[in-house]
C-alpha cells in the first residue's frame, strides 16, 4: 500500500482553492475572446471585453475573478492501493478548503442550516464526490461553484418516449429561463440517464471538461453542437442584455438508465466556471 498523509491533501487543496478562484482557465478565456469578435450586439461586445479585462486584473492581483467564490465541490478519486495516514480523508479535504478560503481571502458563502442561515465562517463543509479507482494515486479536482447559476439548474424526469427531442427541448428551455441571472455567457453541463441523483452528478462532471472539447461519443457530440448553436439563437446574450453569445459550450455526459426512465439534469454554470486539479 502506498501511504499518503492528510497533510499533503490539506496543503494541495488549500493552494487549489486560491488558484481556481483567481486564475481563469485559458480554455474559457479563449472562448470569450473568440465570441467577442463574433458578437453582433455592441453592449454584448463591451461586456465580453470587460470580462477579459476582469480576468486579467484577477490574475495579476491574485484576487478572486468573481466575489462568489462558491461552494467547494470536490471530486476525489482514491486509488485502491492507497492508505491515508494521519486522520480522516474527509476531514483533510474540509481542512484544505478552510485554510485555502482563509489564506486566499475568499468569500465564505456556506450557511449551517437551510432555514436557520448562520454562516459556518470557513466555507465548509465541501460537497465531496468519492470514487474508488485502480492504482496507488489520489486525484483531487476542486470546482468552486457560484450559486447565481446553480440556482438556475433543473432536473427533468422525462419519459422514454420524449426521446432526444424532448431532452433538447428542456435543455434549451432551462438556458432560456436562466437568462441574465446566470451571468451569461454560460457553460452548460448536462447529465442524461442514470437515476434521480446520478443525472445531476453527471451534469456537474460535464462542467469539468475543457470548453470546446466535444464528447467522444459521436451522436452526443452532434447534440452538443446543435444545442450550442440553438442556445446562441435564443437572444439572451452576454449578461442577458441581448446578443448571440449566450453559451460558450454545452457538454453532455450520458449513462445507462432504467427501462422506464429518461432523467435529464441541466447544471447551469457561468463564464466563471472554475476548476483546479492535482494528482498525488
Amino acid at each position, binding site marked *: 500500500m502506498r501511504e499518503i498523509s492528510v497533510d499533503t491533501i490539506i496543503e494541495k487543496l488549500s493552494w487549489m482553492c486560491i488558484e481556481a478562484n483567481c486564475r481563469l482557465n485559458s480554455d474559457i478565456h479563449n472562448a470569450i475572446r473568440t465570441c467577442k469578435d463574433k458578437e453582433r450586439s455592441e453592449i454584448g461586445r463591451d461586456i465580453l471585453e470587460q470580462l477579459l479585462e476582469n480576468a486579467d486584473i484577477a490574475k495579476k492581483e491574485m*484576487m478572486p475573478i468573481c466575489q462568489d467564490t462558491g461552494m467547494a465541490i470536490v471530486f476525489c478519486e482514491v486509488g485502491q492501493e492507497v492508505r491515508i495516514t494521519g486522520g480522516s480523508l474527509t476531514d483533510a479535504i474540509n481542512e484544505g478548503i478552510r485554510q485555502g478560503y482563509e489564506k486566499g481571502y475568499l468569500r465564505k458563502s456556506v450557511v449551517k442550516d437551510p432555514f436557520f442561515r448562520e454562516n459556518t465562517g470557513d466555507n465548509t463543509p465541501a460537497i465531496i464526490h468519492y470514487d474508488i479507482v485502480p492504482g496507488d494515486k489520489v486525484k483531487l479536482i476542486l470546482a468552486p461553484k457560484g450559486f447565481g447559476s446553480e440556482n438556475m439548474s433543473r432536473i427533468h424526469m422525462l419519459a422514454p418516449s420524449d426521446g432526444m427531442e424532448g431532452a433538447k427541448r428542456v435543455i434549451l428551455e432551462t438556458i432560456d429561463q436562466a437568462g441574465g441571472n446566470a451571468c451569461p455567457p454560460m457553460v452548460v453541463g448536462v447529465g442524461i440517464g442514470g437515476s434521480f441523483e446520478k443525472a445531476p452528478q453527471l451534469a456537474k462532471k460535464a462542467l469539468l471538461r475543457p470548453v470546446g472539447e466535444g464528447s467522444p461519443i459521436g451522436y452526443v457530440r452532434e447534440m452538443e453542437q446543435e444545442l450550442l448553436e440553438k442556445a446562441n439563437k*435564443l437572444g439572451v446574450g452576454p449578461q442577458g442584455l441581448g446578443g448571440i453569445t449566450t453559451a460558450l459550450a454545452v457538454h453532455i455526459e450520458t449513462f445507462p438508465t432504467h427501462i422506464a426512465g429518461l432523467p435529464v439534469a441541466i447544471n447551469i454554470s457561468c463564464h466563471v466556471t472554475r476548476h483546479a486539479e492535482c494528482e498525488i
Partner: protein
Amino acid sequence: MVYNLETPLTEEAVGMLKAGDKVLLTGVVYTGRDAAHKKMVEQLERGESLPFDLHGNILYYVGPTPAKPGQVIGSAGPTTSYRMDAYAPVLMDRGLKGMIGKGDRNRAVVESMIKNQVVYFGAVGGAAALIASAIEEAEVIAYEELGTEAVRKLKVRNFPVTVVIDAQGGNLYETEKAKYRNVE
C-alpha cells in the same frame, strides 16, 4: 447615452434615464443582499428605523470577498436581484431611488419602480475584480454579524453600470433579447 451621475440620485436624474443608458456613478452606494434585506424589512415591520437613510440612495446587491491587507475591499460584483424582489417594494416606498444588481425583476418590483420613480441598474456579473477598482472606501455600518452580507457604505468613483429597467418600465432584458432571438 453616457452619463456621469453623483449620488444621492435626484428626481430629475432618475426621470431622464432610459433603459440602455450607460452611467458612471460617483458617490455613496450602500450594499445589501439576502440576509440584510430580510433584517431591514423586519426592522421596518417592528416600526424601527433603518441603519441608513434610504432617501435618494442606491442599494448595491453584493457580498464582497474579504479585503486583503492594503485593499479597500475584495472582489465585489453584483449578485442576482430576483432574490431581493420580495423586499424591494417596501424599501422603494421608503425612498430608495436606485438598485444595482444583475438579472430581471418581477412585475411587483417594476410597478413599484414606476410608482416611486426608481431606476434599476445592471452591473456586469462576474466582473468583480474590475468593479472593485471603482470602490474607494468601504465601511461596515450595520449587521456586522452577517459577514459578507453586512451593510456597507461604499464610496465609488465612476462605477460602470447600465440602466436595465428605467422608471417608466422600459426593460433592456426584454427589448434587446427580442432583437437577437431567432427561434422557430
